[in-house]
């Protein structure tokens, strides 16, 4: 049975292989046409090259140059010491913590939404998430200042009730505070990313597994979790990158008092440069690119793993 099918298939593909490339005289014409085909995309690629690739490369190249233009590693040496090292550590800690919290809460929220049969709840949450995920930036910082800042509405309420959170080690203008604030755009992002894979869990799989004798726990252990783990991991990486690159919220909230990589880099760009640090910013920038690239490769790897069993 199987072998006959295979024979058929290979015979077909062989036949296809013979007929499709066509006569040889077409070849030169083809390659010329391929060249023509590319032309329409040139303006787009040039634009991208000019305003994205060149700036990015110039950052990386300059990172290896001294003020006089000679090759040097001193910028990187500087970037991994003192306050700059601290900023990398802070940034990574912040992004990691914020992404972990948002992943957990976001997954719980997406499960809750997907488990709900109420259409209104579902529509509300999915469009609400789309909007809130875009609510990062400066306005976000100010609405949290108004809420739990030094003089925020909730801070006041709590102080009146005899519990001033600022007397108990809480501060909005800290890494911990930022972790909370970032949830405001990270959780909706997580929900948006996770709803499709959760919805893709099919009822037939549950039915099949229970007719085969499996308990619900066994279904989740062998089917549900293996299917959801890659998208969750991939989403976590997206969240991490998003938090890592975020500048506006942190800057508006802390006015640069917390040492994060984007903030340090911003300060260097705005001209707070000490002598001998000419190209230090470029080294920080190159460092950021490197971290985001690593995240990107991890993401691609996870996606490829997952696509082993998905279309």
């Amino acid at each position, binding site marked *: 049975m199987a072998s006959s099918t295979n024979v058929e298939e290979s015979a077909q593909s062989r036949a296809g292989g013979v007929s499709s490339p066509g006569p040889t005289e077409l070849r030169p014409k083809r390659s010329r046409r391929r060249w023509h085909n*590319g032309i*329409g995309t040139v303006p*787009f690629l040039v634009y991208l090259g000019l*305003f*994205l690739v*060149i*700036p*990015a490369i110039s*950052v990386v190249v*300059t990172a290896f140059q001294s003020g006089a233009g000679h090759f040097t590693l001193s910028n990187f040496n500087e970037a991994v010491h003192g306050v700059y090292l601290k900023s990398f550590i802070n940034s990574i800690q912040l992004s990691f913590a914020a992404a972990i919290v948002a992943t957990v809460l976001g997954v719980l*929220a997406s*499960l*809750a*939404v997907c*488990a*709900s*049969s109420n259409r209104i709840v*579902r529509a509300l949450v999915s*469009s609400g998430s*789309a*909007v*809130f*995920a*875009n609510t990062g*930036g*400066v*306005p*976000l910082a*100010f*609405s949290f200042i*108004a809420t739990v800042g030094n003089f925020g*509405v*909730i801070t006041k309420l709590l102080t009146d009730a005899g519990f001033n959170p600022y007397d108990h080690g809480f501060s909005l203008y800290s890494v911990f505070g930022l972790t909370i604030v*970032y*949830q*405001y*755009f990270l*959780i909706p*992002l997580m929900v*948006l*990313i996770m709803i*499709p894979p959760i*919805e893709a869990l*099919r*009822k037939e799989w549950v039915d099949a597994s229970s007719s085969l004798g499996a308990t619900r726990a066994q279904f989740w252990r062998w089917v549900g979790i293996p299917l959801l783990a890659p998208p969750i991991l991939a989403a976590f990486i997206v969240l991490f*990158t998003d*938090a890592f*690159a975020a*500048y*506006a919220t942190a*800057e*508006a909230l802390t006015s640069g008092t917390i040492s994060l990589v*984007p903030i340090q*880099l*911003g300060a260097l*760009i*705005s001209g707070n440069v000490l002598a001998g640090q000419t190209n230090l910013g470029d080294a920080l920038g190159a460092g*950021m*690119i490197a971290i*985001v690239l690593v995240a990107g490769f991890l993401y691609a790897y996870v996606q490829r793993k997952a696509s082993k069993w998905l279309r």
Partner: protein
Amino acid sequence: MVAVTTNVGRNGKEPGAANVLKLGRAFRYGVLGLVGIFFIIPILASARFSFLGNNNTITISAYTELFSTPQFWSTLFLSVKIGLGTVLLTLALLIPTVVWIHLRVPKLKRVFESISLLPLVIPSVVVTLGVITSFKSLPNIIMGTPVILALEYVILALPYSYRTFDSAVQAIDLKTLVDAGQSLGAGWSKLLRLVLLPNLRSGLLGAAILAFAFCLGEFAVASLLSFTTFPVFLVQVGQVAASQAVALSLIARLFTWMPLAVIIISFGQRNASSKKKTVSLAKTIEQEETTGIA
């Protein structure tokens, strides 16, 4: 034992996932309620804060003062101008490129889709630094004016604008339309005007709105290149008058929410019947979220 199966069929018309998950009502509403509260409180608190006068009185002075600040209007106007410029540039770049790719080199669709996501890989702070280092020597008309912002915003908004337009083109079977148009004797300009643009209207609108909303909210590049756009003005106000800044944030939020709500709702309706498009919109939005707006 029977309880295990009890919920399966009870609500026969539930969507698939509801049957798969079977989470208790308490869990569902508990989680959604708590998350909901977290999202609503800052908005309510902002509203309350912005109307707070001395000695707990209620006042709208934060708003009236804002509206009478010339800078409020000038920065808003600047941001809108930059936004419009960005939208025009984006469309000029996207329409020919995407249409070309779909007609002539469909094999490269996915490649260009990935290329359009490149700006997500490079944080906007780094892009800004790169712009400064590499374009130092450009004439003042570009580097010294907000033109450079529009030029860069085209790039930074590309992940959303490209996706949206690309999926709109994907949805209409461009090649068949063009073949049909040509067989009926339409030239390229007629084809574009009578066939392509009307069919791609919503995709163009979506791409334009996303790019525009991005421009209204972008802070990093503008502030680091020392242009006082609307969000930069917002931060400046924040350093002086907290209640005005909070009031302004509410206003700014409306500016970005309204256009987004428009596309989410209109796409939602248009795609009610077409799963493929919904998926691509979901993708678009998902990409959207990963921006540097934050």
